[in-house]
């Protein structure tokens, strides 16, 4: 009942385009995350849904009602701010009750709602405290409680975890996920942290910034988290989702069948990918992309592997990152390996690029369709490097 529908929504500040032509449907009960680089307007888009920023052109419906010009309080939405924005002079109880009082809700009803929210968030013993007497995590929970008491159809979160320390961030992230599961309300969540995006979202909306936003519109890609991971629509999405970022190698298209594309890397190494690149002209300049976790170490006798030299090695315990210098690209090729690889800086290392995990991007940066027959998490069939 609280589905959100944006149609050709634009935002300009003066003459400056901030949001370019966003059309988006968010289903009732869906957890949608807006993510993107700084300056992409993700917070602005959220604030437009909230009603704190005017929509320059376009329409917004919430729960089937046209709300484009309605003030925030008439939209049935509640918002949790980055700085929590608790009223410093009011107790926790009053912070949560304030909106209800303004809506002229009856006293017993207010009391019941505040106490229920306090139960959900374990705020019971803190109700008579002032915000300054609370820890960061507690303040965060009060901010969420203030949203809950109004039983809105839509919750809006503006980077709510960015002021918490790392441990608390993980804990609160899980609490928000549980809250979503129990409340079944629609939620829009803005973050710059892709881990939050990947873990919380039913769907991710990745936004473009700058020139790409003006050229292609604000939305870079919308999809389930693993869609964005496995089928990034273009180089920008490929680079943004996943950490460390995807390796990209300049290549030339040597041959294409509907099943497979043959590529030649800059240093002459041949590689293949399970993609359908038949729409691209022969000899097209393309980009081969492969995530660090999918690069394989070639066997010791690896005759047809991509040659490189370890420049730097990072040991994380459960994994190691190798940074390889290779003639196939400028900068480093990043390789993620489980456990300790025993590779030391300066060692010659040969790697394989499994064809099932290779992405190919055309000259315009758009992805070529992949075949994921083995399933997104399936084992690579065979080494793609010949």
């Amino acid at each position, binding site marked *: 009942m609280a589905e959100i529908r944006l149609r050709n929504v634009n935002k300009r500040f003066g003459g400056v385009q901030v949001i370019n032509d966003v059309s988006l449907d968010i289903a009732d009960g869906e957890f949608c995350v807006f993510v993107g680089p700084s300056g992409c307007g993700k917070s602005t888009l959220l604030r437009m849904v*909230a009603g*704190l920023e005017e929509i320059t052109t376009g329409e917004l419906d919430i729960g089937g009602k046209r709300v484009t010009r309605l*003030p*925030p*309080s008439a939209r049935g*939405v*509640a*918002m949790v*701010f*980055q*700085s929590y*924005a*608790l*009223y*410093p*002079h009011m107790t926790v109880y009053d912070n949560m009750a*304030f*909106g209800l009082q*303004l*809506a002229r809700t009856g006293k017993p009803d207010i009391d019941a709602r505040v106490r229920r929210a306090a139960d959900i968030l374990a705020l019971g013993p803190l109700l008579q405290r002032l915000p300054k007497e609370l820890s960061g995590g507690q303040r965060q929970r009060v901010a969420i409680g*203030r949203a809950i008491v*109004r039983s809105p159809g839509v919750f809006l979160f503006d980077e709510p975890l960015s002021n918490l320390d790392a441990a608390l961030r993980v804990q609160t992230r899980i609490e928000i996920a549980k809250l979503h599961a129990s409340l079944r309300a629609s939620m829009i969540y803005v973050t710059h942290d892709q881990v939050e995006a990947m873990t919380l979202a039913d769907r991710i909306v990745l936004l473009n910034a700058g020139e790409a936003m003006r050229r292609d519109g604000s939305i870079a890609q919308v999809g389930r988290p693993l869609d964005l991971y496995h089928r990034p629509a273009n180089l920008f999405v490929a680079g943004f989702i996943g950490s460390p970022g995807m390796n990209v190698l300049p290549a030339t298209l040597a041959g294409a069948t509907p099943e497979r594309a043959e590529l030649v890397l800059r240093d002459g190494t041949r590689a293949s990918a399970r993609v359908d690149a038949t729409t691209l002209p022969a000899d097209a300049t393309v980009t081969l992309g492969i995530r660090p976790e999918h690069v394989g170490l070639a066997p010791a006798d690896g005759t047809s592997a991509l040659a490189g030299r370890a420049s730097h090695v990072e040991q994380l315990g459960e994994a190691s990152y190798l940074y390889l210098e290779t003639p196939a690209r400028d900068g480093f090729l990043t390789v993620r390996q489980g456990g300790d690889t025993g590779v030391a800086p300066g060692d010659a290392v040969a790697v394989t690029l499994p064809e099932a995990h290779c992405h190919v991007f055309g000259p315009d940066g758009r992805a070529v369709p992949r075949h994921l027959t083995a399933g997104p998490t399936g084992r690579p069939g065979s080494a793609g490097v010949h």
Partner: protein
Amino acid sequence: MRRVLPRLGLYGLASLIVLYSVFPFYYAIVSSLKTGQQLFDPGLIPPQIQFDNYAAVLGQGVFLLDLFNSVVVAVVVVAVSLGVGVTAAYALGRVRFRGRKLLLLSVLGVSMFPQVAVLSGLFELIRALGLYNSLPGLMLAYLIFTLPFTVWVLTTFMRELPKELEEAAIMDGATPWVIVRRVFLPLLWPALVTTGLLAFIGAWNEFLYALTFTLSPEQRTVPVAIALLSGASQHELPWGPIMAASVVVTVPVVALVLVFQRRIVSGLTAGAVKG
């Protein structure tokens, strides 16, 4: 040695500053406690403390009345200025609208302009309203300087409140009036105290309008009463009572200022540096 000399210089300078700042007031107090011939002996410590001058000043009922007038005028003017100023400062500090800059400039302009420039127009207005030689007339006149000052300073304080707090209130369904009254006002108390205090001092000290718009001794404020205090003959001013009256008028203000030092300084700089 090279470290000690600058230190000594600093202390010397600091003592000089304290002496220079405080001595005239100290001397006024000393003089107010001397009577008769003692007054004409410029000793820095009164040979004996006598309150005859205070008795003389406060004994005339009219000075006490003037003191009361000053308090009433200043309190009313401050209350009106703060009341009008808070909502105006919210509008000027936190809402974007056409004409805001012009309005701010006019507020600043009025606070700068010489009070004598409106003297004849104000005189006419006050007489037309039947407020000549009355406290309400003075209150009306004083708004010309307390109001722009209050609005200006409160606007700078208003802008410093976090934006998200206001937005949270908007999401909670608060109207601008509710935001001012229930969210911002409780947070602005320190600023109101500061601004009110400075406006109070301004009204307490005002002289030109009080001199021009009042006639009878019963309607005067204390600055006029002190300025016009005269003795038996024209050439012999009653210095003892004048000093006593000065001390009476000044002690409360100095005490207030010293108690609220930090707030005063922040208010002064908010009013000026942001200009």
